[in-house]
């Protein structure tokens, strides 16, 4: 037990260090990109978001570089309706996304109780803002919604096998899975993810997945201020063929500031008591 505690402390310390490094790296990138004094941060600014979204192409994209903070539509564009296996159909019919029901009747645990969204659900539903920071051996991805981060290994390691398996040393499934990434060309980053906890949904449509699901993100940066994301899923246990889950677009944030956007369990309980339970 003590060993486990010590181990978790060390892991936490290393994680904190990585995060601190990552954040400082973003801060450095931010300084490089914006030599002018940052604009004043006002509480009642009227068109901050408009400015964030209407800043033109901003010149050519730097090569193999997504570093910095981006914003865009909250929800991604849905992809195709996939062809489900019987096992997936059973799970899918038990899922009650808010889109098909309402905030009171849904069994989406993010909507109901602010549970972690997991990946790729968060990328499909609510990023609100997204940040990237490159370390020597990995890429850190930060999400404004819920202040969540992912680490994407770029040191050439393979994805783990047998996540959630019974064998000795099998890694545990995670809400945000295990990710590795590489640059396909100077403007396209490809990230592969597996080992995602199967209690999460793929997206707010309520599509299920297995722990073996293989999710591919493809980020393309056509110019300095634009970033496009395509997400595909390969999960033979659940779907008869790989399919496009959705696409998203992001814009470079001129002042590079993200907001704090937390779904707080006690707040959502108050919301349900005051509004949600009575409005449905």
């Amino acid at each position: 037990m003590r060993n486990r505690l010590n181990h978790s402390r060390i892991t936490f310390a290393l994680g904190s260090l990585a995060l601190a490094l990552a954040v400082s790296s973003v801060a450095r990138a931010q300084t490089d990109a914006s030599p002018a004094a940052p604009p004043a941060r006002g509480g009642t600014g009227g068109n901050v978001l408009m400015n964030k979204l209407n800043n033109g192409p901003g010149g050519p994209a730097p090569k193999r570089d997504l570093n910095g903070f981006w914003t865009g539509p909250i929800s991604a564009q849905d992809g195709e309706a996939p062809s489900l296996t019987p096992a997936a159909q059973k799970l899918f019919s038990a899922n009650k996304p808010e889109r098909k029901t309402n905030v009171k009747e849904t069994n989406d645990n993010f909507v109901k109780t602010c549970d972690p969204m997991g990946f790729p659900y968060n990328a499909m539903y609510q990023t609100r803002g997204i940040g990237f920071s490159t370390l020597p051996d990995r890429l850190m991805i930060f999400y404004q919604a819920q202040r969540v981060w992912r680490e994407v290994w770029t040191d050439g390691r393979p994805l783990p096998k047998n996540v959630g398996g019974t064998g000795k040393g099998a890694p545990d499934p995670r809400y945000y899975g295990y990710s590795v990434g590489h640059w396909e060309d100077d403007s396209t980053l490809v990230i592969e993810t597996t080992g995602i906890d199967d209690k999460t949904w793929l997206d707010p449509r309520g599509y299920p997945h297995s722990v073996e699901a293989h999710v591919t993100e493809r980020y393309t940066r056509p110019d300095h201020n634009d970033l496009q994301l395509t997400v595909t899923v390969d999960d033979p246990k659940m779907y008869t063929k790989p399919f496009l889950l959705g696409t998203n677009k992001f814009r470079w944030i001129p002042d590079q500031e993200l907001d704090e956007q937390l779904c707080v369990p006690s707040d959502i309980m108050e919301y349900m008591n005051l509004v949600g339970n009575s409005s449905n």
Partner: protein
Amino acid sequence: MKSRLFTFAALAVAFLAFCGPLLAHHGNASLNTDKVLVLKGATVQRLVWANPHCILVFNMTDDKGNVVQWAGEVGSPSAMNQMGWNRHSVKMGDVITVYFFQAKTGNPVGRINKIVLADGTTLRDSALGADKPAQGAAAQ
């Protein structure tokens, strides 16, 4: 001055047009959005400044003289910030007018379209803040 006002109005409209469908954490299917209730004499109880939705809690006196508590959601704090609100926009006891999309259930809950303060200031919702013709103004 006129052109600045026009620019502000254009930006506000563009913001609403762009962000309206995107800023909602929860859907609006349960609301009667065809009809905006005009609730005059609403007495503010509190403004819950929290994610994913801020909530304005206020009292209305119905036809029989009973005080009824109403609760209306608006957008998230960051979205409302963009619309000119902050956590101190209203305080307990303020008497305001609330433009309101009531839940189809008929309960005194729903989504706020806009509020008008005693000094005439108008504060709009981030998602459903565009003007709609008022119908069937509710009794106080």
